[in-house]
């Protein structure tokens, strides 16, 4: 029996985890909240998720092909981006919104990931950035593009009018909290377990937390960012005399803190940095919700996404600020 020697560089052991394992684990972690969104919204939820994921897969494939690289469906990253984006969107039954969801997924991977350096080098969380892109598109459709819609009704919807996006069919807890609608605030238990006002990913805080702990258990992420972000909102809400429990449990805060702010690529590399990053997100969310909401500056949608996006841009600064001293460099 002839020996065949296998040669490679050391170290000769590896902990076994790969990036694609982590991506698939994120998808597993998103299963509980995806299921609750399906239970509550049914077909609307399916439509949104499928559109976003297909858009994300296509966006990645198209740009990678242009760059002369192979498509990379199997690593799960595009699917993760599409699914997370879908879960930040409100339900809608209007079929005309499908192109915009598809476009959101496409833009997320094509523009905010592949054209901004590719997986690992994108400065912004693609799902978050694309969520804001859709929000902006929605605003422009209202304020800017309306005349165009009239000019070319057949063409314009695909480009500008994204239909009922962000027009929630039901009042969200945040709207209730901000006094935008005259409705009773859902009970804390409802907010925590199952709640139909809000985006797909806001349907159950419990389902989000189950997913979060799965990722922590698997060793992919740590709790620093979510805990820092959520407790900052809690403390600031209490300081401003608002109900901190309602603030923490409503809107996309828990979902964003668990699944969007913990993205490896767009968050700091040290625990210290992660805590600062989380506090920053929490402070911005509180600012948007408490100050802007009251002053009619904002519609109360996308606050978490904006907060994460702004903090994404500050990651290099935070990493520099929190740089540690190497061993033996103390003296």
């Amino acid at each position, binding site marked *: 029996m002839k020996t*065949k020697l*296998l*040669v*490679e560089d050391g170290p*000769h052991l590896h902990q076994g*985890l790969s990036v694609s394992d982590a991506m698939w684990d994120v998808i597993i972690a998103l299963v509980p909240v995806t299921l609750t969104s399906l239970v509550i919204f049914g077909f609307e939820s399916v439509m949104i998720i499928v559109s976003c994921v297909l858009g994300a897969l296509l966006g990645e494939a198209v740009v990678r092909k242009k760059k002369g690289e192979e498509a990379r469906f199997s690593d799960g990253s595009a699917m993760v981006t599409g699914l997370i984006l879908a879960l930040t969107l409100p339900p809608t039954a209007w079929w005309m919104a499908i192109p915009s969801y598809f476009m959101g997924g496409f833009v997320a991977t094509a523009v905010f990931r592949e054209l901004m350096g590719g997986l690992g080098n994108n400065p912004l969380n693609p799902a978050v950035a694309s969520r804001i892109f859709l929000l902006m598109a929605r605003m422009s459709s209202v304020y800017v593009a309306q005349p165009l819609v009239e000019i070319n009704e057949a063409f314009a919807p695909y480009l500008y009018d994204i239909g009922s996006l962000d027009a929630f069919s039901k009042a969200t807890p945040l709207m209730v909290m901000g006094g935008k609608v005259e409705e009773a605030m859902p009970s804390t238990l409802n907010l925590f377990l199952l709640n139909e006002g809000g985006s797909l990913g806001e349907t159950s805080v419990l389902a989000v937390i189950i997913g979060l702990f799965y990722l922590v258990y698997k060793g992919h992420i740590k709790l620093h960012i979510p805990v820092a972000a959520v407790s900052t909102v809690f403390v600031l809400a209490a300081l401003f005399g608002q109900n901190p429990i309602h603030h923490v449990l409503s809107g996309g805060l828990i979902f964003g803190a668990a699944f969007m702010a913990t993205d490896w690529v767009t968050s700091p590399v040290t625990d210290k940095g992660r805590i600062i990053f989380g506090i920053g997100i929490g402070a911005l969310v509180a600012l948007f919700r408490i100050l802007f909401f009251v002053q009619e500056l904002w519609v109360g949608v996308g606050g978490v996404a904006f907060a994460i996006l702004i903090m994404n841009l500050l990651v290099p600064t935070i990493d520099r600020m929190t740089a540690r001293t190497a061993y033996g460099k103390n003296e």
Partner: protein
Amino acid sequence: MATRGDFQGGIHLPYNKELAKDEPITEISMPEEIIIPLSQHIGAPCEPLVEVGDEVKAGQKIGESSEFVSAPVHASLSGTVKAIEPRPNASGDSVESIVIEVAQEQESISYEQERSIDEVSEEEIVEAAREAGIVGMGGASFPTSVKLSPPDDKPIDTVLINACECEPYLTCDHRMMLEQGEELIAGVKLLMKAVGAEKCYIGIEDNKPDAIKNLKGLADDSRIKIQSVPTQYPQGSEKHLITTVLGKEVPSGALPFEVGALVQNVATAIALYEAVAFGKPSLERVVTVTGQNIKQPANLLVKIGTPVQHIVDECGGFIENKTKVVVGGPMTGNAQSDLNVPITKGSSGIIALPEKMVKGNDDYISCMKCGACVENCPMRLYPNKISTLVEENDYDETENYYPLDCVECGICSYVCPARRPVVQQIKKAKGEIAAKKH
């Protein structure tokens, strides 16, 4: 600042020590030829003292250098010099080596107690270490006589015996602590005497309670403490053992004497005792032969220069014929492309790993900035930054992240989910920086 009892970073590994830890040290049959590299140490290579065709005797000095930082080499078996030529070694380099055809009849060398270790002077200990060609046997292979001669203005108060054996799979130091405890304690006393140290800690990872117990029973000198240390890779890195036991950090670029410490490995201390007491040169060492793909794991007393193939054959060969063979520990050792490489003074193990354990990570992807390498780097470096900069060929910029301080423990590559060859990239940065400075 470091605190006594721990260092920042480091990880727990699957140790797989049970494969070989209960195998007593045994001797093996003679190989047909031995290959003695003229450089088995850090420092100047030796010049051969023999010619092709010469008869040499076991223990005879066959290579030497007049440089201070060097260590002579000896014939480990009697025989005839067959060739003096470059031969591959386990580090993947080609090194000028003396190849000896081993004689069938070996005179048995009997080492008698030549001198009492209580009567030797400091100078005699250093001289014996030099003559015997003793180098650090934990893998770094730094000449021991040089380590025992620190600058006069740097007094050494503490000897640390590195008995961590923090690399997975390896059990040779563990076996020596169980079977050669008296020799180890005697070697410790010689080390303390040579440098004038007042105390000694024998640092043993707490996954070897039997070794700790055995040495506690044997240490008959109140100045020698058996120090249990946490099992955490790379506890056996010289700097990290110092931090754990003494609570001090060795300044960047400095050697342990800067903090008053001398660190020596278990096998080295035993070799020093044998050199001083019996005049025995460094011509054999204990090698752990292990791994999931070796038929009979063992701890073997092997003559320096024995080809790896011969040792593998002695252990029944491989289970699967497709195998990775690592010489050294699995974290810092090298995979071999040729099993005709010799065991040298610093070779602590031969590890045969089956095909399913091959990482196959030639297809790595961009850094995901997950921070795993940053979190676990025991030198508190930013391996991610160095890795990315090396990819961009920006070696000047890497210097801001101190690649020269890297101890090459391999944790960064071990934890990287993008399977990036981080430690190889840091080694490359070191090479480029060194090349630029010359």
